[in-house]
């Protein structure tokens, strides 16, 4: 664990990592959406996206039954078409032990949000205890939220120390650090927070856009800012950090645009579910729908896909 740092000013950080121009980056990502994927390349992209989904349910009304059906869906997204399992299921800590019954020992990982998700407004001791409990129950991956209050008030050292403490509490579990980009607001802040987080997490840990609980979540713009931060960090240190956009990615087309951003920014080594994930629920159905369309040549009736999983 690094020694506690004195707060450094944001300006000094930007001198080091550089800033982001909003108009320019949005122009860049608009180009991703003009790429046209046909035939094999489309199927490849859709299947890749399926294997990257963290199939998520994060509701007050979650029950062991709901988690069970979520797990089945993750293991076998569709009864036809040989569609691969998703990367993980993502649930609240109290549901981890229920998820373990269904996906434990399979290739589908159990991810759990922790650290007083989504606000993070609980004492550090409580947040760390929650992480340890989730890991003890069998979580393979922990999705934490950063202390946005600390970031916005310039206490970067505090923010980093807390992340480092969670890294320690995770043990062998992979960590995903949620920046909650909508509360950071500017692309400059997102870049800064990405760097602060990446400097205290391990190779293979993730930075993640959002909780999905605010009104603005993953966009191609903030995804691009974070991908470029990961690229710059990797080229400078050799440490590969993984990326997870979450919330708001509901259609297969959107997912493909995000993957094009990965392909053209970070290259082939990030085109797998160890380095890139989607935090999503409704997305999986649309991916399956499009894959079935490619396989059969026609869109299938809507009742072939469990639209009732909208809340996933």
């Amino acid at each position: 664990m690094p020694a506690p740092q004195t707060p450094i000013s944001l300006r000094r950080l930007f001198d080091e990592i550089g800033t982001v121009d909003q108009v320019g980056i949005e122009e860049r990502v608009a180009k991703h959406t003009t790429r046209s994927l046909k035939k094999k390349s489309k199927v490849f992209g859709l299947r890749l996206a399926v294997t990257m989904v963290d199939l998520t349910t994060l509701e007050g009304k979650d029950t062991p039954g709901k988690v069970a059906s979520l797990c089945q869906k993750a293991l076998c997204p569709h009864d036809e078409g040989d569609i691969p399992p998703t990367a993980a299921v993502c649930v609240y800590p109290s549901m981890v032990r229920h998820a373990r019954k269904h996906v434990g020992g399979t290739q589908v990982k159990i991810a759990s949000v922790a650290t007083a998700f989504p606000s993070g407004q609980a004492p550090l001791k409580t947040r760390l205890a929650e992480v340890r409990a989730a890991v003890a129950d069998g979580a393979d991956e922990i999705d934490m939220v950063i202390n946005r209050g600390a970031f916005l008030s310039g206490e970067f050292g505090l923010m980093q120390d807390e992340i480092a403490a969670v890294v320690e509490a995770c043990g062998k579990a992979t960590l995903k650090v949620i920046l909650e980009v909508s509360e950071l607001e500017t692309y400059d802040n997102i870049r800064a927070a990405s760097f602060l987080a990446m400097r205290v997490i391990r190779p293979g840990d993730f930075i993640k856009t959002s909780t999905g609980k605010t009104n603005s979540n993953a966009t191609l713009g903030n995804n691009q800012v974070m991908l470029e931060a990961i690229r710059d960090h990797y080229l400078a240190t050799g440490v590969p950090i993984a990326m997870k956009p979450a919330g708001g990615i509901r259609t297969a087309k959107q997912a493909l645009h995000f993957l094009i951003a990965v392909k053209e920014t970070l290259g082939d080594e990030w085109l797998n579910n160890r380095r890139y994930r989607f935090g999503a629920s409704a997305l999986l159905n649309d991916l399956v729908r499009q894959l079935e369309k490619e396989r059969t040549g026609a869109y299938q009736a809507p009742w072939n896909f469990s639209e009732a999983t909208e809340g996933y």
Partner: protein
Amino acid sequence: MPKTPSKTTAKTHPARELVFGDLWEYDPAPETADPKMKKKYDLFINGEFVPAKSGKYFPTINPADETKIADIALAGANDVDAACKAAQKAFTHVWSKTSGQERGKYLYRIARLLQDHAREFAIAETLDGGKPIKESRDFDVPMAAAHFFYHAGWADKLEFLAPGRKLSPHGVVGQVIPWNFPLLMLAWKIAPALATGNCVVLKPAETTSITALKFGEICQEAGLPKGVVNIVSGAGETGAAVINHPLTTKVAFTGSTEVGKLIMRSLAGTEKKMTMELGGKAANIVFDDAPLDQAVEGIVNGIFFNQGHVCCAGSRLLVQESVADEVLAKLKRRMAVLRVGDPMDKNTDIGAINSREQLERITALVKSGVDEGAELHQSACKLPTKGFFFRPSVFANVSMSHRIAREEIFGPVLSILTFRTPEEAVEKANNTAYGLSAGVWTDKGSRILKMSTLLKAGVVWANTYNKFDPASPFGGYKESGFGREGGKQGLLDYLKIS
């Protein structure tokens, strides 16, 4: 200790470079709609398509595969004479008596028809000129329509251009346009001319006549009175006939500085009004506090847009010495994912060079850069075996005396120079015969304002590049020409003020 093979060493110390490989290749995504092109195009004179009086045609080819697309009528001096007389007649009897409101209606109609036919125009433009379909689809055609819409709005409001003064049209305007943006340059020329009440004789470039002649069909469909727009295709001699014809009282030319000078010589001593939009060698200036990834995007957009066949291309990159290495590294990484190839593929970023002649010119200039000692980097992409293609190229360690830093290459070739202070940047940027455009990249707003006043360029873009709008006047200083196109200034160039 046994010698360790170097492979093992490489494994334990992986090179920190990104892999842009073939894990996920994009399949071909060709645009397949019908461009509705004819095998043979005649001249558009007095509202009708007529063969050249000589009966001569010349072929136009697709630069992406060198196949012939169509035969184009070759207008001689007598055809140009007929076109000018038709235009004069239309001006005297019809167009000068048509109210601004009515002229506006025609322009709106043309704009909407261009939108209706957008897809076929985009495909025709790409087939004939070699530019990627995504550019003709997303830029050329929509911008051409936007120019007609914009000028349609002005047609009945000309009195507000110069309050208290009397404005009147010139009559017949002779216009000669280049091959880099065939339809868009036509729109830049014809829209303000018609809005201000002039009639037009226009000569498209010989390698890209099709969309101009297709535009003749749009004029017919719009019911534009006969003779208001005339299009005569051909090469340099046809252009000279248009410009020197006694009936053309105003001449508008976009093209090379070399030809611009010839035109000015031939018109010296006549009363003809002129506007010239000529070459450029723009400086794109990147300061060390700039958002570098977006600057790199702007550099790419500035030099590789339309294969660098852009008079305002940011062909000289001036980068502050402290970030020069980083910018070059980022630029190379960005170039690794640029897709060069079939212009009709929707994923193609860089298409075909417009003609063999232009390809040879680019090749020769790049050779001179290597010979003079600049350091050449080219992207490793695979080029098609047929057609005219050139690898996106960047020269590092260029000095001001190199040919590649002084001459307009008009291709996908960037020359990188460095500077230490803002004053040096301005000095180097202005040290050129041209003055069409420039770019400034910095996070400091006050510096942008200061640079924009010091740079001798008609357009200065700040933290962006190659942005156009019909309301924004475009034109140059020094050997980049004079007169403006677009906006109020552009309209005034088509009017006599008394």
